[in-house]
């Protein structure tokens, strides 16, 4: 149970180096931008502005189980408990000047995009106001299926306005040639990421969900860096090796599951725990946000517009039709027996369509779903025993139905 990947050691080094660089760059007074995960880091690497992702830091707070303590600080300031737990942890850490990495140095500027939720916008707004940080919001009106026509033109204009804002605030110029080089590396990495996700379709599956969620980090923060490519290659090769050597987390798979929504960061072991019942999470929707379907290959001949397309058509910026199409594709491609929908109190746009999606998947594909209420980052009120009991029942039900 819980067979670890060798690539995890390489990942730890990547994360450490990234945070070391973040602190070093901040100490040196070089420009740092806090971005939400929908904002392409490639543009910032091309401008020599260090991209830092508070959502990633939020996940770290969750994994280290410090969110409730940090939330209290933000709640004391007047922020509601209904605010996304990432935001509560991040704002609390800034106000308290403490957290998993100690006191976080404040950025030169912030950029966020509205392509996921209202919460991100209010989170960036709060940090901007509390600490007087110049903030740019890339407007990305929600689309039905993807960005096209005048919507796509608007997305391109928005990215150009954002670049001008960053140039004005940092004095750093946007280097187009460097940007193309970075985009090429990022594209190559996305191809490898697609391969990695594809390898999980193998029966038995070579990688459980806990590992893939952990390995999302380079896809979020390091796209365009050379070390990102080498790490992804290492991970892909290790999965190929596992398949070749028949070295699987659950060799005798009984139930193949799909996880919908963010993981429960403070309980990533939950996935491993279920391996003893012959169940493995072979795919998830969250990592698809960085996969070929939602953050595909950027057109190197028209890159700003192409990035605009992917920002405008981001995973949480599309409507239920595309979410359903994704589930249908994944269920078929990965031979999924059941779906666990994490109904995440801290992520309304992801969660509030799940009952409807569950119904469609059951009626049209005959695949059952379990709606599991939790919070991705705040463990208060999380009853692990009850969660495992419900998952066990669900797995047993699927096994019985397969007989």
């Amino acid at each position: 149970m819980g067979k670890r990947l060798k690539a995890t050691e390489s990942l730890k080094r990547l994360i450490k180096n990234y945070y070391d660089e973040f602190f070093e760059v901040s100490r040196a007074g070089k420009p740092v931008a806090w971005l939400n995960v929908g904002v392409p880091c490639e543009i910032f690497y091309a401008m020599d502005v260090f991209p830092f992702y508070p959502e990633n830091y939020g996940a770290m707070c969750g994994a280290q189980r410090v969110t409730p303590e940090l939330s209290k600080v933000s709640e004391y300031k007047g922020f509601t408990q209904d605010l996304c737990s990432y935001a509560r942890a991040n704002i609390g850490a800034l106000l308290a000047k403490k957290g998993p990495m100690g006191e976080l140095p404040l950025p030169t500027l912030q950029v966020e995009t509205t392509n996921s939720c209202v919460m991100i916008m209010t989170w960036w707004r709060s940090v901007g106001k509390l600490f007087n940080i110049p903030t740019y919001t890339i407007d990305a009106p929600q689309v039905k299926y993807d960005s096209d026509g005048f919507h796509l033109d608007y997305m391109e204009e928005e990215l150009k306005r954002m670049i001008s804002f960053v140039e004005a605030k940092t004095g750093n110029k946007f280097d187009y040639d460097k940007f193309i080089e970075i985009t090429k590396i990022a594209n190559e990495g996305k191809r490898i990421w697609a391969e990695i996700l594809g390898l999980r379709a193998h029966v038995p599956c070579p990688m459980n969900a806990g590992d893939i969620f952990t390995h999302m980090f380079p896809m979020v923060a390091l796209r365009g860096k050379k070390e990102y490519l080498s790490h992804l290659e290492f991970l892909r090769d290790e999965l190929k090796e596992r398949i070749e050597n028949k070295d699987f987390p659950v060799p005798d798979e009984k139930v193949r599951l799909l996880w919908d929504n963010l993981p429960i960061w403070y309980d990533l072991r939950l996935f491993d725990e279920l391996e003893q019942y012959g169940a493995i999470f072979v795919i998830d929707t969250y990592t698809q946000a960085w996969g070929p379907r939602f953050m595909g290959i950027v057109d190197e001949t028209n890159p700003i517009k192409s990035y605009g397309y992917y920002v405008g058509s981001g995973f949480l910026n599309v409507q239920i039709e595309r979410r359903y199409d994704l589930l249908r594709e994944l269920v078929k491609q990965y031979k999924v027996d059941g779906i666990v929908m994490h109904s995440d109190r801290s992520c309304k746009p992801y969660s509030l369509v799940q009952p409807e999606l569950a119904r469609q998947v059951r009626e049209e594909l005959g695949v059952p779903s379990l709606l599991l209420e939790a919070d991705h980052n705040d463990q208060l009120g999380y009853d692990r025993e009850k969660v495992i009991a419900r998952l066990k029942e669900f797995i047993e039900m699927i096994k019985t139905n397969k007989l």
Partner: protein
Amino acid sequence: MEYFSYLQNISKTKNVVGYFDTYMPEEFLIALAIHPVRLMSDELEPSVSNAYIQGFCCPYAKNLLEQAFQRKLDFLSGVIFTRYCDSLRGVYEVWKTEKLSPFVEYIRYAQVTREESAGYLAKEFLRVFDNVGKYLNKQLLTDNLKRAISQVNEKRKMLMNLYSMRKKGSLSCSSEEFYKLVFSSTYLDNNDFVADYKKFVLKHSDNKSQSKIKVVVSAAEIDTLEFFKLLDEIGFSVVSDDISSGTRFFKDLVCETGEDINEMAINIAKRYILKPPCSVKEPTERRIEELMYEINSSNAKGVVFLRTHFCDSEGVEYAFIKERLEKEGVPHIYVETDHRLSNKQQLKTRLEAFAEQIEGIIF
């Protein structure tokens, strides 16, 4: 005639189209000879909707979904959602998938309130209302849009005048009576509203001073008259507000100089994008400034900040409103409820304590 029966009656002769927030430009619907109605919450408890959307969805949004499931909105020819909050977004997806009205349109709204967004938004308005016209076999004509802009501007001016009288103390009516008229402006036919407005002003105009405690209500949305009745009973008089069916609904006019449909669409887009913002838009500085203006111009003694359960964006905005009110020395209270005021007794106790606190300051 009350809300539902009034709209059912209208729908016998005219298409009625519902909308959900203060960003839907009713000018276009009026120009298409469609009756626009901002849907209001009612007393229904969530029942059928529980199977379609989780409990942490905004209860106000969920109530509208429940009304649709219970067939209380069958008089609608269609509905139009905008990109507003994350709860309404969830409700939209269910409404559309379950086909709860003959058509469901969605305005891919700009969230950022920058003038640069107006060109995009104008095109989006024209796309959506062209679709609406096709559903109902109607066409958007220049003269009709021009007249509609003027008509809605006139309504806004009437509401501005009403609030001005209220703030000056020249309207002797309860908060409940006042808001009954204000909210009716979001669903009454223009002629009916103008008639009611005139009657109201005639009936309530006087300068009798009231010994009530003047407050301003700040919220995302509260269309429940029961809340204003409760404030009246405690001894408050709501002299102005910062709510989306109150001042944020009527402040700012559409520029009437547009000559063709594209120009007019841009003028409409500019008004909606630059008006006092709700907390789901960015940035929100103007909202706090407008709130301060309402407090100062009405000589209010305090602010009641009301948050609907699970409303995350208001829960963030409150932190900054609170900071500003404290800085300005304005007494305020933060309360939470739902559209049915299901915690009415608890609210009453807290609001009574707030009244005592303010009276202690005044006297």
